[in-house]
């Protein structure tokens, strides 16, 4: 399957990255990792790209890691449409100290606007 994994540097996005890479190796998915500009994340995009590249390499995958500029949600949806992705994978939400899960505005936009299935990784 042609899978687009969008990550922005939050803890849950890295969890999504690791799980998607793991699964792609088993399922032989055609994976692309899109590093987006999450305004809520303090991690430098270049650092995120590096982290994604090493995860892909460690898994022995031939997956592309791409830095995607502009509005994260709409760019992910657009990429999925123009390049024929079949699934978008995102982090499953931020967990507060209380244990409450909140789903960010990027995931909400993608959920509501994507034509493909969307997976939120918990």
């Amino acid at each position, binding site marked *: 399957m042609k899978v687009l994994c969008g990550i922005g540097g939050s803890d849950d996005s890295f969890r999504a990255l690791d799980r998607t890479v793991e699964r792609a190796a088993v399922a032989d998915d055609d994976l692309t990792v899109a590093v987006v500009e999450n305004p809520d994340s303090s991690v430098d995009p270049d650092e995120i790209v590096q982290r994604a590249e090493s995860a892909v390499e460690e898994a022995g995958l031939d997956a592309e890691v791409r830095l995607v500029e502009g509005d994260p949600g709409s760019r992910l949806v657009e990429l999925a449409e123009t390049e024929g992705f079949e699934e978008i994978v995102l982090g499953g939400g931020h967990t507060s*100290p209380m*244990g409450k899960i909140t789903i960010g505005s990027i995931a909400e936009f993608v959920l509501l606007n994507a034509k493909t299935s969307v997976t939120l990784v918990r």
Partner: protein
Amino acid sequence: MSDRGYPEAVADEFPVPPTEFTDREGRTVEVRPYEDTEEGYEALVEMYDAFDPADRAQGIPPGGEERIREWLDAILGDDCYNVIAWCGDEVAGHATLVPDDDAYELAIFVHQEYQRAGIGTHLIRGLLGHGQAEGIRKVWLTVERWNRAAVSLYKKIGFETSDAESFELEMGLRLNADGEDAG
């Protein structure tokens, strides 16, 4: 995430527990800070174990006794503030303040048999009175946007919306002015 917004004005004074009242069903309910006893802890576990899954919000309370105990151990720590609404020796509701950077995150749960009886309002006011007396300055919470009963309760208490960008509203309340006491 320390860029949360809070009202400029400090909230009114809330009643400091213990307090007692009669709910709309005629039941006597007492609001008290959580006492760390085995009976109290087990009564709390019992309430959450019987909690209607339909009343879960954003993943809490978790399901299953083991996960409930794990979660309670995290939010009943010494750095948290917890208040219980007791009906006899049964827990009718529980409200908690959990530290997060320079503020506290609030959550409140009322067991389904005790809902729509005015207990939530007394419980949250009791928790905020407890926190206010302990010198807490800022409290925040998130609530699912469609949960109108909860949103209107928080507004009535004095919470103001600080972020309405996604599924969950974020709301804030100022309990004490900056510079007063600790917390």
